[in-house]
């Protein structure tokens, strides 16, 4: 039986836009927890240390497009630092994560931002996530300080909590909105003339 595509509107199928997103940041700031919260809606108090680069996909729906993230969650330990370019190379988006209760992790985050500015794709969409916002009583990195830094460097910025899920979806959503999504076709019912020659999608985001 032939492959079928029932229900496709005249004008043909539009593919979901796929983007490579990489998470960077010091060990134990909660990169894997953010991904786990975002993708599976789960949280583990004792999340295993990532030895490698975990891979998951997650789709988000925007007003006018569907964005599929291919998420690479990298190991944070310093010994693996030199492998990071394998993952941020070719990435269209990056989330640099720090822990608001750990000053050192904020410094590391800044280093990551610098490295991305130097080495990653010039069009990469970068977000800074101050994670563990639920532990505000142990806060050492002030919101204003991080926000000012993010503004200087044109980063998206949110404080997040993988534990309470605060701002987790939002930060991915905010990134999706900043990504260069070519407007899809055949979107609204009744507006597409079936005799109109099929338009080719421009841009590299969509397969």
């Amino acid at each position, binding site marked *: 039986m032939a492959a079928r595509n029932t229900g496709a509107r005249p*004008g043909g199928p539009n593919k979901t836009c796929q983007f490579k997103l990489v998470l960077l940041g010091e060990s134990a700031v909660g990169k894997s927890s953010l991904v786990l919260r975002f993708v599976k809606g789960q949280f583990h108090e004792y999340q295993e240390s990532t030895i490698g680069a975990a891979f998951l996909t997650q789709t988000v729906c925007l007003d006018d497009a569907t964005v599929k993230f291919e998420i690479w969650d990298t190991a944070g330990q310093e010994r693996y630092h030199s492998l990071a370019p394998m993952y941020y190379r070719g990435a269209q988006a990056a989330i640099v994560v720090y822990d608001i209760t750990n000053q050192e992790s904020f410094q590391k985050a800044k280093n990551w931002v610098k490295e991305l500015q130097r080495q990653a794709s010039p069009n990469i969409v970068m977000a800074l996530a101050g994670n563990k916002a639920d532990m505000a009583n142990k806060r050492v990195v002030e919101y204003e300080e991080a926000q000012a830094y993010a503004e200087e460097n044109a980063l998206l910025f949110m404080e997040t909590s993988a534990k309470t899920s605060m701002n987790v979806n939002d930060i991915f959503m905010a990134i999706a909105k900043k990504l260069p999504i070519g407007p899809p076709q055949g979107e609204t019912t009744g507006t597409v003339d079936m005799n109109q020659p099929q338009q080719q999608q421009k841009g590299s985001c969509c397969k």
Partner: protein
Amino acid sequence: MTFYMAPASSAANRNVYVAGRDSNVDEVMRSWEHKYCTYKEAKICISTFNVNGRSPPPILPGWFPSETGDISDIYAIGLQEMDLSVGTYIIDNTKKMEEWIDCMRKSLPGGEIAFEVIATMRLVGIFVAIFQWRGSHLKISHVSTNYMATGISVLMNKLGNKGGVAISLKINDTWVCFINSHFAAGNNELERRNQDFRDISHIRFANGMRTIYDHDVIFWFGDLNYRLSTEYMGISNEQVRIMASSNDFSSLLKYDQLREQMQRRLVFDGFVEPATFSFRPTYKYDVGTNIWDTSEKGRVPAWTDRILYWKAEDSIKIENKLMESVQSISISDHKPVRGFFRLGVKKIDEAKANQIYEEACREADRKANELLPQVKLSQTEIDFGEVKYLEPTTRQITVNNIGKSQVRFNFEITPLGKANQSISAEWLQVTPPHYVIPKGQSTQISLTVSIDSKEARKLHEKAKSSQLQDILVLHLEHGRDHFIPVTAKYSPKCFGVSIDQLLANKKTGDEVSEDDTCPKDLPREIFRLVDALRRRGVASLNLAESTDNTDFIQIRNALESGHPTDLTLLQVSSFALYSALIRLIDTLTEPVIPSGMDGIIHYEFIGVNRDARALWTAVSVLPPANRAIVEYIALMLHEFISQNAAIREQLPLWAERLFRYPPQTATLLSAPDPRVVALQTLCEYRRDAVFLF
């Protein structure tokens, strides 16, 4: 240019589900159809009629029954041989077509005004028309038409002798395709008919974007021209006619070519028609009668006129209520066939569909993430501990495939500054570098650290620390990466060290005994090896012997630990001792005769290679230890050659190891290597003898 219609209201268009973007999401949405669709029954009547080129009467009573009052929503009527006049192939004559549409309208139940023509399509004599009853509540949309000619004459460029016409449309939200076709005629054109099916099934709609199989349901009807293969079975035309006139159609249907070809899946694969027929063969009659063909050709009766359907999924509800011929109509040599169907058509509630779209995306992601390859490693980190020169050590990692399908893995080239774009550091070998593990199975990966002479020297240059480190990146195809840090401790004492370190060993080594005859500036390791060889004597040294690694390890351990002091006590051959000496010189991190500043020292030796006095003068300006080694080796070789002439053949090997760098001046291939000449000179003319005069 990008073509995009801005939505009227952004809020109203939020998360609109559009099929065809992501096949995973579509699959979920299809399986959830009941959540956002309502279903209605559509009554569909199909009729196919080969009209033999006849002009229609104003009305064909009985074509579509009306007395029951049961009117179908949709009538799809296919004609073949609507126009046989020669001119038809050249001039597009619409007169016959209009007459037939008129006849159809009038023959439909409820009269001509009760129906609306939805679409028609014509390929010369092959014609299809779709009517919708005005009382029907079904919404028909997205109508598009196409045809495919399969005519027999290449010269006539397929002018529509045979072929198919098709109409694609949506009934509510169910896609339906109607195909009327006329296949090749003749008893022996079976393969040609099958080819007609294949050709026509390539019809596409909507600018080629939709194939016939991109519909929920296909109705395929027409004069398919499949015959009865009774002749080959020895059944006479007369017998067939008797059977065809009786009510025993099932015994005749056994010989139907189409059934036979479908059973062998050669044609109409997946299509359905009733298990048996309750009507006579529809071909061939004398026009105006119900009498089998009495012409000269006397055709054997056959069910040439057929109605089949195909559905995309089991879940689609379609029922064939009735299939029959209309025996009373006799204007043609064929009888019309009609079929009544009930099709469950869906209506998508777009708001509901859009509501669950996000959920469907998540479900699709969940399924996709679940299917990602997964492996478990028996060890996530490998520490080789102490590794030694020329003593390969191997460790195993078991990779267990714990995912839901087979997994393909490979080691990635990493940016860790490894030479030659390798997956691992030069001192580390990984096998296999890639592999496929079936579901539920496992495989072993071997990691081997081995340090040869070249590597020993290189490691010394690279890192002063004794820690060797590498990280392997094991990549699962379409999945994650695992990092495997590999460490080893390499602290060479004798092999792979500098001359300075050998001298330092001497200071920290065991207490110097009274009768120590080791020259002051000579590394003790060299002295011990040479001393042992001397005492054993080299007359019987067999240079063709091979030495195994365990011998070497014994010697190395004795040299490193200082025990036994006397190497002759070791259970190893003289050749093993001799080989160890060569390796010791070979793994020194710098050559005994240094290249010096811009190779000057080296060049001096080469330049004066036949002048013993000049050579010894050059030796005298070397650092004390280097000088001691050259003097000692030269003296040793002098002695050994006198005991065993075969050792003379070893001079190039020794020259190579003492000088290391190739001669800087290009020499003729036939000319002797100046390094060898220099060493030979040093051996032949002992220093004290030269300076005696």
